[in-house]
């Protein structure tokens, strides 16, 4: 509130400044002619002084004086411009309104009016909290170092993660490094170590970090962090297309939405933009439920009869598995029923349509899916 009052006061002052000449008419104002004449008169006096003191000869003084007098005549001949001392009030008043309005506009673009100042001295609590965390971290570190078996793996991971949050990347590297050679090291720990190393180097993926990523991906080919930083390595290595491809591949390996997908997607599109690829959306990777994509179908077309059958059965069993997790998905059941029908597995088809039938209750009477379910049940002997 205080800010708005003071801001308004400042705006008012600015407006008053603009219109001030309308009230305050005093003050010295001289025209060009009188101003110049004053100076020339002074110069004449100066020459006279110098002549009297003997600095210049009478002759020189006379010549200089003639020259200055000529200048005086010149100035008088030119004359001053016509001066109006009234009028123009409207323009000034308009300007007076304009100044605060414009400033307000500029401020709205740049300002953060709600954000209070936080002088260092007033932030003792925050520092206390930070100190407490730092203290706890220090104690954890000391305990882990004191333990005979070198400290529990979880303890070190916790310590490393805390250091990362505190922005002490070097210390985080140190903490994760304790675990690097342990038998129970996981892909997750290795990628965290790699991440800390990358943070230390301000985003640069070093050879060492890359080696860690390779090791992590070997242990867990599906590690999202592993793929993410591996792509960063590829990009920094001058292979953006390959980096994008890697990220896309990892996205395709998921059937449903994962929290890390947003950041993958942003990277994919950033890389895509740099090499002229069209942007992609989340829907390109996870549509629920997902039938065989155009690519899958095309791939199926090129297969032998036998392979194709196996391929389709694989797709269908994938779908069936997913439906166990999402029993409320009506469209999924319908798709599954149709697929079983095509494969000739009538019992399975019937089961799928039965499951779908149970979900019809909430639907409108004229929903086309009611008809689909009825047809399916009938066709499969239900």
């Amino acid at each position, binding site marked *: 509130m205080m800010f708005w009052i003071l801001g308004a006061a400042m705006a008012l002052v600015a407006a008053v400044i*603009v219109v001030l000449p309308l009230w305050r008419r005093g003050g010295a104002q*001289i025209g060009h002619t009188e101003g110049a004449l004053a100076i020339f008169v002074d110069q004449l006096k100066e020459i006279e002084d110098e002549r009297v003191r003997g600095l210049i000869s009478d002759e020189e003084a006379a010549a200089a004086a003639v020259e200055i007098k000529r*200048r005086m005549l010149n100035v008088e001949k030119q004359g001053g411009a016509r001066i109006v001392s009234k009028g123009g009030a409207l323009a000034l008043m308009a300007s007076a309104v304009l100044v605060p309005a414009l400033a307000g506009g500029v401020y709205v673009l740049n300002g953060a009016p709600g954000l209070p100042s936080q002088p*260092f001295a007033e932030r003792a609590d925050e520092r206390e909290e930070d100190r407490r965390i730092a203290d706890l971290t220090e104690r954890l570190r000391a305990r882990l170092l004191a333990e005979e078996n070198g400290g529990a793996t979880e303890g070190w991971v916790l310590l490393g993660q805390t250091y990362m949050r505190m922005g002490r990347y070097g210390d985080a590297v140190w903490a994760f490094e304790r675990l690097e050679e342990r038998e129970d090291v996981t892909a997750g720990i290795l990628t965290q170590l790699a991440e800390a190393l990358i943070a230390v180097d301000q985003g640069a993926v070093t050879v060492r970090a890359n080696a860690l990523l390779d090791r992590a991906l070997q242990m867990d080919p599906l590690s999202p962090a592993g793929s993410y930083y591996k792509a960063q390595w590829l990009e920094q290595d001058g292979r953006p297309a390959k980096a994008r491809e890697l990220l896309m591949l990892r996205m395709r390996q998921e059937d449903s939405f994962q929290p890390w997908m947003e950041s993958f997607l942003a990277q994919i599109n950033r890389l895509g933009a740099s090499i002229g690829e069209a942007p992609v959306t989340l829907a390109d990777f996870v549509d629920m439920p997902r039938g065989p994509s155009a690519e899958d179908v095309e791939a199926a077309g090129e297969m032998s009869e036998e392979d194709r059958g196996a391929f389709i059965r694989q797709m269908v069993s994938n779908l069936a598995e997913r439906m166990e997790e999402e029993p409320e998905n009506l469209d999924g059941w319908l798709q599954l029923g149709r697929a079983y029908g095509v494969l000739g597995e009538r019992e399975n088809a019937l089961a799928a349509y039965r499951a779908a039938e149970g979900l019809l209750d909430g639907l409108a009477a004229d929903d086309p899916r009611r008809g689909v379910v009825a047809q399916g049940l009938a066709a499969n002997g239900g």
Partner: protein
Amino acid sequence: MIPELGQFALALALGLALVQSIVPMMGAARGNLVWMRSAQSTALGQLVFVAVAFGALMWAFVVSDFTVKNVADNSNSLKPMIYKVAATWGSHEGSLLLWTLILTLFGAGVAVFGANIPHALRARTLAVQAWIGVGFLSFMIFTSNPFDRLSPAPVDGSDLNPLLQDIGLALHPPLLYVGYVGFSIVFSFAVAALIEGRVDAAWARWVRPWTLAAWMSLTGGIALGSWWAYYELGWGGWWFWDPVENVSFMPWLLGTALLHSAIVTEKRGAFKSWTILLAILTFSLSLLGTFIVRSGLLTSVHAFAVDPERGVYILALLGISIGGSLTLYAWRAPAMEGGGLFTPISREGGLLINNLLLATATGTVLFGTLYPLFLEAITGEKISVGPPFYNMSFNPLMLPLIFVMGLGPFLSWKRADLRGVAQRLWLVFGVSFVAMLVVWYIVTKGPVIAILAFGLAIWLMLATLQEWGARIKLFRAPFSESWRRMKNLPRASHGMTMAHLGLAVCIFGFVGSSAWKDEVVTFAEPGTKIVVAGFTVEFEGVERVRGPNYIASRATLDVTRDGEFITKLYPERRNYPVAQSSTTESAIRHTLAGDLYASIAAPASEQAGNAWTLRVLYEPLVNFIWLGSFMLVLGGALSLSDRRLRVGAPRRAKTPANVQPAE
């Protein structure tokens, strides 16, 4: 809240600047007095609001408000208070704000103290000043906002570059900027005169005090800058022909030329269009300098590409201000009538030579500064142009300049009698020449140019003193008569004497400290003794010392001469853990005859153990540089205080005629 008020104050200043750039200009064109006078209140208003913004930023630094990004990036809670304050102008954004503050300060100065300037000229000048203000305020607000906020605020700031944590930094940029930016008002006067189409002797008189004020500050700023480099960088040098130094030196050279050519315009009505051109070019060089330094162009041409938004804005600003003013000049200057005639041997002739030499010198420095940039931009090759280039090109240009400087004040206007002058000066010339030979004799190995320069400096000093002595009839009239004459001499003429003497004194320093310096660099272990210029320096060892935000290794040096104890020196190597960098703190024994200068660097290698790189220099006469600089500034101040510069103010005109002039 306070940073937000600062932000809003900047926006209001921009609004006022916009009004001021249009309304007074229209007022002057239509003869509307109210519109013209609005420039005075808006100029003051701009100053007030920019000062509020500057104060808000400084407050944020003083209390370490890390919600302001600029503070978080450039300060730290542990930093000593004086450097927190100085950090206000330590960053790109802060220094722009300081720049703008000084810009508005000069505008307000003309609004308040310019009562003797005709209203139309004043209105136009302030309008042009406001154009520059609009350019800088908008640049700051839209690309380099000093009040960008952070939420959540970091726990502590990331410190200021410790190299810059120095009292030199606290004073150097403000002074340098007052000089740089001071020339903005001279530029505005020139552009206003071009628009008005009227440049005469009176115009030159109106502009003179503003030129002097700007020139003084720039001189002071450059001198402080070199002093800072001298004792902070630890190399024992005071001038490196570094581009950052050059960009401040070029406006100084051209500004000096302007100061002199304006005298001719004032006294003789000649050199009009040349004076105008110099005014435009001097400020253009200041702008160029500001932006070359601020855009990071100096470190690499590629810095420009890192921040294209700023780069393009800068280029546009430079293009509009320099290109626009030169176009205006090309269009209007030919219409100016020529001034009085003069023969080659005359005061005018001498000042013309001064101007030509100074302009050529400026061109030389400009070439040396920009050539590496262009080369890198075009071919990608990186080169650096250093002292050898300037020693061969710039220094020889200065020698004839100093010679003419000694002569010039003796010449009379229009046509001078060279023989008469020569008669008056033969003694001076003789003494200088003998002094030169003596110096040559003492320092047999000294380079020729140094001896020549030294002799010329003595020549300049003696000739200047002789001219001053002649004016007051020193030793030729009773002392009381001379005293009276001295008191009656215009202050401007004392100013000239002082400034010319100052330059002579500076040259002693330049030559002494560069040509006859004695330097020893060695690995030192406790007990190591070295001999420099007759001093025996014993390295006693290094101890660790803790400072407020640094840890220092402090060496103790025992200095003796002929077995007699002289002093102890404590050079330091400081390490700033937060900023993760270190600085050299040299230890200096100052005397007028010369400085004994010592600095240490970290042990050469791990194995070296206690061995430190110790550098001890003896720099003869080096303090004369700053003494001379001070005299230059003092000369400017004396000249500025001359009563005649205020003539024309109506209040003065009302002074009863029978009062004795006080000059």
